[in-house]
């Protein structure tokens, strides 16, 4: 498979080892602009490691990774400018106000002061937290923190969004808000990678899904295609269990072709 250097995300034969331990073992995938790609798997499957390599936080042991046409390994800083990264922890500086925090990250992304200020006002209105802007992050509710965190990830309007377990610890309302936001970003032409171990969450949201197991890509395709691949499973969860059982039994199914 050729790595696309045009847009979206492309990963080719990515391997990441820590000493003798292989966390990610030869994963390949592509995410097009305007697509939500779900990265699914149990804890320790290699999802977070894959996303951290993609975000330039960890260095790949081998393979190629590109974000919006920029290869991450030699040009990590450039790639990071085209990326919005939302972690499972909100990652906010508790003693800064929401406005100070957003200004800091906007400036780190190279935005001019006036542009940052205007963008913060717009995004706070859009995500409905304008009243929270001058409150310290430590004083915000979990929903408020999540909104500020989302705003931080998209402040510089990146073409690629990476969301790592974004709904962990969120209540129903906040989870719903997040889903709607992700769909809206997809509709604006963003390439979105959405990592989760909530299979139902992924089924509702993702256009395509990659199932990771023990650092390898177990199967890939649309939710319907994955269910079909598992012999007409009624849910993604059932499909996942069937595919894992097949793998543990020695027969590893080939990844489905890209849709």
């Amino acid at each position, binding site marked *: 498979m050729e790595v696309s250097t045009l847009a979206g995300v492309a990963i080719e034969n990515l391997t990441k080892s820590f000493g003798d331990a292989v966390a990610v073992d030869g994963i390949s995938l592509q995410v097009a602009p305007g697509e939500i790609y779900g990265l699914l798997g149990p804890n320790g499957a290699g999802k977070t490691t894959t996303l951290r390599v993609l975000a330039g936080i960890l260095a790949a042991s081998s393979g190629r990774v590109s974000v919006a046409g920029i290869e991450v390994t030699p040009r990590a800083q450039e790639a990071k400018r085209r990326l919005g990264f939302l972690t499972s*922890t909100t990652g906010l500086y508790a003693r800064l106000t929401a406005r100070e925090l957003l200004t800091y990250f906007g400036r780190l992304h190279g935005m*001019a002061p006036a542009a940052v200020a205007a963008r913060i006002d717009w995004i706070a209105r859009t995500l409905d937290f304008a009243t929270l802007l001058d409150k310290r992050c430590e004083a915000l509710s979990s929903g408020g923190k999540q909104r500020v965190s989302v705003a931080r990830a998209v402040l510089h309007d990146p073409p690629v969004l990476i969301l790592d377990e974004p709904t962990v610890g969120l209540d129903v309302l906040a989870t719903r808000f997040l889903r709607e936001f992700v769909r809206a970003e997809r509709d604006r032409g963003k390439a979105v990678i959405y990592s989760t171990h909530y299979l139902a969450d992924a089924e509702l949201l993702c256009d395509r899904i990659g199932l990771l197991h023990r650092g390898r890509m177990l199967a890939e395709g649309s939710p319907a295609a994955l269910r079909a691949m598992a012999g007409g499973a009624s849910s993604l969860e059932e499909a996942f269990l069937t595919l894992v059982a097949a793998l543990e039994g020695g027969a590893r199914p080939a990844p489905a072709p890209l849709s």
Partner: protein
Amino acid sequence: MMRHPRLATVALVYRKELRETLRDRRTLMVMVLFPLVVYPLMSLLLAQVMASKASKNAAHASRIAVSGAPAETAALRKTVAADHTNFALQPSGDTTDVELGRLDALIVAGEGRAGKTAVTIVYDETREPSNQARERIDRLLSGALPAQCQLTYAVTDRSIAPGAKVGGYILSKILPLVVVVMVMLGAFYPAIDITAGERERGTLETILASPVDRFDLMTGKVLAVATLAAVTGMLNLVSISLTMLEGIRLMGGATEALRIPWIRTLASLIMVVPSAFLFASVMVAVGAMARGFKEAQNLLTPIYFLCITPALIAGLGEYEMAGVALVVPGVNVTLLARAIVLGNARLVPALVVIASTLAYGGIALALAARLYDSERLLYADDQHLGLRDWLRRLLLGARDDESVRAPGVSASDALLLFGLAYVLLFFVFFPLQSHHLELGLVVSEWGGMLGLVVIYARVTRQKLAAVLVLERPPARALLGALLCGLSAWVAIGLLAQWIAPPPPELVESLRRQISPPGGRGLVATLLLMAVTPAICEEALFRGPILRGLASRLSPLAAAVLTGVFFGLFHFDVWRFLPTGLLGVMLSLIALRANSIIPSMLAHAVNNGCLVALAQLGLDERINTSRTGVQIAIFLAATAVLAAGAVLVATTPPTGSQRGEAPNDGGEAHNDGGNAENDGPRQM
């Protein structure tokens, strides 16, 4: 979008870190509350209490009784009774009255002989009024003259030091030390907060995913911590000066005789900036290794005390700001501050101090950027990659030579043995040695070192020969060790002499130990100071300590650490360098030869040469010869040392070395200690 230049990024990080840290209550407490409120309040309270006590004491008339021979007693009573202000003469009393506090002192007069009366003052040293009474009686009686006599001299004291100089002298004793300590304290919490705190609050991943270079990030952080530390230091400096001024006023208002040299005190602020940068860099570098507050505190506390020690030494001693002291971190800034306050600082040494301190800070900053390693900080959560394993990997790479490892000795055993031997030596054997040198040496060497290794082998059920690696060495290694032993004492001795010359008193004291005034004999001294250390010190250091450390570290790192331990074991700052270097050399010999015997030989020959020369009175010749001659001797000794090193290094591996290292040149042998083998595959 425009791209930020690096300075702008650093400034951005700096402002953010400063703002965030200043909103932390702990930082504010250390930075502002201590210097501006707590410290002056405590000092002034203390001064007030002392002043009130002093005036109360002055007003108190000492209760005195006189006993003894009747004739002398009458004369003494008359003398004491004449001083109504200081004494309240009691009709009678004895020692019990002094003990019970009914009397402040008792004067016991003896029989008068040759016109003199023997007087004993009985007092209680643990009671202040009693001490005061003794002083008063002392003063009264020493000034008592026969009626017909008058004093020949009228003595008046007049110090030529101006008030500012006296004030400067007192300040120079207190101020640099307190400021250095407070600068470090000012850096302590912010350093933890912006490194380990980032990790603990879950913001590390966010910042690492942003387009900011790690070095820029750490520079911004270090500068923010340095600013906070510098402000803490400066506030302390001003606070101490003002408090001292107020203290002087309270103690009697001697402001004319004792003035604060304000301009020089303010000029000493210059040392705050480089010290703050250095300590901030060091603390951020250490904090960067930690994964949480607790780990950072555990790591930084010993570093804090380690950093304070040189400042304490320089602050309390009377050292000159010259030579090596100019580049010893912590010592140099303390001495510079003192010199500035005293008004005797010179420009070039001052610039050397500032430049070297900034350079050390720069090195620590580069290290901080390297240590802020996302691989460990993020990955270690799941994989239990310990700090020790990670540091080893970072600094030394993966271990690829297991040939030197004795199966039963672990690194923790090595550290435990060293700690035990260190404590025993300090608390048991040193006092014994100072009481009786020869006996103390024999007991500490054979009991505290070899004996310790024997006990260790028995407790761990290992053969002593295996723990010591007491193997028959190749002849080539023995010859190399002999050459090293013959030359090392000259080369290392001269090197130490040039870098950090020991004080003459130390040299003289060592010479007296080797060649005591009563004489000991060459053979006895060789047995005591060459053969005994060669067997016993080698058994401990090149035995389980070296082998245990080599089980965890690379051979070079194990040899260096063993050398450091060996240097520390001699409990002497001046001997640390030569004994440390000797320790490294002996460790490398033992490792390469895979036997302790060559290092024992080299140690015996090295000490033997020193003993023989001192006994013959020839040892001073080398140190006092002209520089050209010294260089020639040094080069010749280094050539012999190099020849010995080559012989040892080219010794072919022994059978056991080959047998234990089947993977030489192939895959690294791993002892299964790596937690990552368990891998991330946890379903």
